[in-house]
Structure formats: structure tokens, C-alpha cells
């Protein structure tokens, strides 16, 4: 069952990569990359049990942290870039709502 999980994870990761390449908007790509990162954490955890190396779990933990921080960082970047591009009207509304 571990090997089947490994294969299913690889299939899911390839499907997420297809969406990340095809994605029409930038948010589709970010969504696919987020999913890819989560599945990478799972892949490392499953590989740790398949090959019997319990040290890999630390790498999975650190990868989960980096994945979350990078997704939030990229989202903030595009959010602020969009605010600056849309002029003062939208920006003032957002600042007032914040």
C-alpha cells in the first residue's frame, strides 16, 4: 500500500504541475504550486517509511514550513502589486477596510 501511495502521490503531483503550467491566471498557478508543496511533504513522509529512513521526517517538517511561508509571501506580493496598479481608488478602499 505504501508503494501505491507513492505512485498516487506522483500522479497527483504531475496533475498539479499540468495545472501550474496551463493555469490562465496567476492564482491558478499559486494554487497548483501550493498543492504541489503539500503533496511533496507527504511524498517525503511516505519515502521515509518506504526506505526506512526516519531522518527524512525532519525534512518534511521543514518543507511544510517553507511551503506555507513562500505561498503567503507570493500572495502578498501579487496583492500589493495589484493594489498599486489599480490606482488610488481601490487602494484607498482597501486601506479603509483594513
Amino acid at each position: 500500500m505504501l508503494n501505491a501511495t507513492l505512485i498516487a502521490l506522483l500522479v497527483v503531483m504531475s496533475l498539479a504541475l499540468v495545472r501550474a503550467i496551463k493555469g490562465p491566471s496567476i492564482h491558478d498557478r499559486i494554487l497548483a504550486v501550493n498543492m504541489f508543496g503539500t503533496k511533496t511533504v507527504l511524498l517525503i513522509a511516505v519515502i521515509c517509511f518506504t526506505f526506512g529512513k526516519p531522518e527524512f521526517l525532519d525534512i518534511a517538517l521543514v518543507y511544510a514550513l517553507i511551503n506555507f511561508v513562500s505561498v503567503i509571501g507570493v500572495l502578498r506580493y501579487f496583492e500589493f502589486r495589484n493594489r498599486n496598479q489599480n490606482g488610488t481608488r481601490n487602494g484607498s478602499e482597501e486601506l479603509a477596510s483594513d
Partner: protein
Amino acid sequence: MIDLLLGYTSGLLLFLGCFFMLTGAIGLLRFPDFYSRMHAAGVTDTLATILIIAGLMLIAGWSLALFKLALIMLFIFFTSPTASHALARSAQLCALRLTQTPVEKGPADAPRPVAEASAPVSKMEAAEGT
């Protein structure tokens, strides 16, 4: 006996996790809209992760690996909905472009049921031809 039961339970949990994961990936690939894609990915992501890590925890037994897996599961349990929420909020803030595209695509998507309706006809014709 208890080892056999643990093996079957972890296999079942891993299988359910794979099923939800594949469902979410197919939804991510096939859905027409960004928000429905995010629904498919965000809903299945947390559940599949928790199921697969629970299956691995049953394999690990009482050890340090169990604690690390519990940490990973706790972290993903909190960060995956947070990332989905941040993504939806960012998409809504950029919605000036995102909502324009589905509205423009609306009439273009309308002939799609006709195309889908014509597909069984062609199949029937092919069946009659054979």
C-alpha cells in the same frame, strides 16, 4: 493479530487518502473556474493529508516518528485552510480582472452542453454503424 489489524487499518486510511487526493487533483485539472478549482483543491487537501499521515502513524508505532508525524499533521491542519483563505482573499482583491473573465466567458461556455449532447449521438451513430 493486533499487527494485522493495524496493517489493514493503515492500508485503508492510505487508500482513502489516495482516493481523496486523486479526486482533488482531477478537480483541480478539470473544473472550469478558478473558485471551483480552489474549492476542489482546498477541501480535499486537508482531509487527504490527515488520512495519509494517520495511516503512516499507524505504521510508525510508538516512536519519535509518531511525534514528528503528529507535528506535521497539526501544522498542515492549521496552515492548509489558512493558505486557501489567503488565496481566496487575494483573488477577491484582484477580482477586477478575475470576475471579468468568467462573465466574458459565459456566452462562450453556453454552447458547451450542445457539444456534450452531440457526443452521445455520435457514439450512437458509431454503435449503429458497427
